[in-house]
């Protein structure tokens, strides 16, 4: 870890990965398989479902959260109170010893308008030697 960087709460300031299969996952939101929004107006439910969709997307590529190196969060109407909710739920998905690098930004709009949170990820599956 670098002493020049402030502490990171629930994520890593940097993550390195050797070449492997790189998996890019598009932003996931709180929808079911039919594209219907789940948890309207409820950040907690939406964070949970978005991460579940992310988990399924990773699984389709044969990857797990342990292999995720970078996560980007886009949060509509970001408030100070939003952070503890997001941190609590993501902690149940992230590898606790080696969480991914992480960036979070408050945004003006997402698609569809009912989406409060969107999460995308890059994972690297190590090459089998």
């Amino acid at each position, binding site marked *: 870890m670098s002493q020049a960087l402030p502490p990171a709460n629930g994520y890593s300031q940097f993550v390195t990965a050797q070449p492997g299969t*790189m998996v890019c996952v*598009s932003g996931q939101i709180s929808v079911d398989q039919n594209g219907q929004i789940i948890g309207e107006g409820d950040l907690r439910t939406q964070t949970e479902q978005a991460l579940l969709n992310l988990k399924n997307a*990773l699984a389709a590529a044969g990857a797990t959260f342990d292999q995720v190196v970078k996560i980007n969060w886009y949060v509509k109407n970001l408030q100070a109170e939003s952070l503890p909710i997001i941190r609590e739920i993501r902690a149940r998905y992230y590898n606790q010893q080696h969480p991914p690098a992480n960036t979070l930004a408050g945004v003006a709009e997402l698609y569809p308008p009912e989406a409060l949170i969107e999460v995308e990820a890059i994972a690297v599956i190590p090459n089998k030697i």
Partner: protein
Amino acid sequence: MLATLIALLTLAQTEYPQSKDLPPANGYSHVVATRPGKMVFISGQVAMNKEGKVIGIGNLKAQTEQAMLNLKAALAAAGADFSHVVKLNWYVKNFKTDQLPIIREVRARYLNKTNPPASTLAGVSELFLADVLIEVEAITVIPEKK
């Protein structure tokens, strides 16, 4: 025989796995998996001409078109094309749902229809110049020549 087997196993540089647990994706892929190659990171491209002037003031369609053209030029400079793009990120000022068809229509003309890259779009409050309405960045992987 062994060489053929190895060649077959290492064939697909980039894969587009499907998941029945996810809703359909319109004009992009949910997941793109790619083998090691040369990574190309392209900064967010906007509707600027070579002289640095923003074109298509107030016109999202014209700006999306020019941003994609600039992205194409950036890819070419790195020896890549749109088939090598694995991930796109879109940042749209004053984003409204009814703008999506415009963006989708323009991007469809550049992206592979069967296997488009992964993509995330966010509505943002501001971009670096007041007249810029849309910005698009790309992660690209050029296969290593063996």
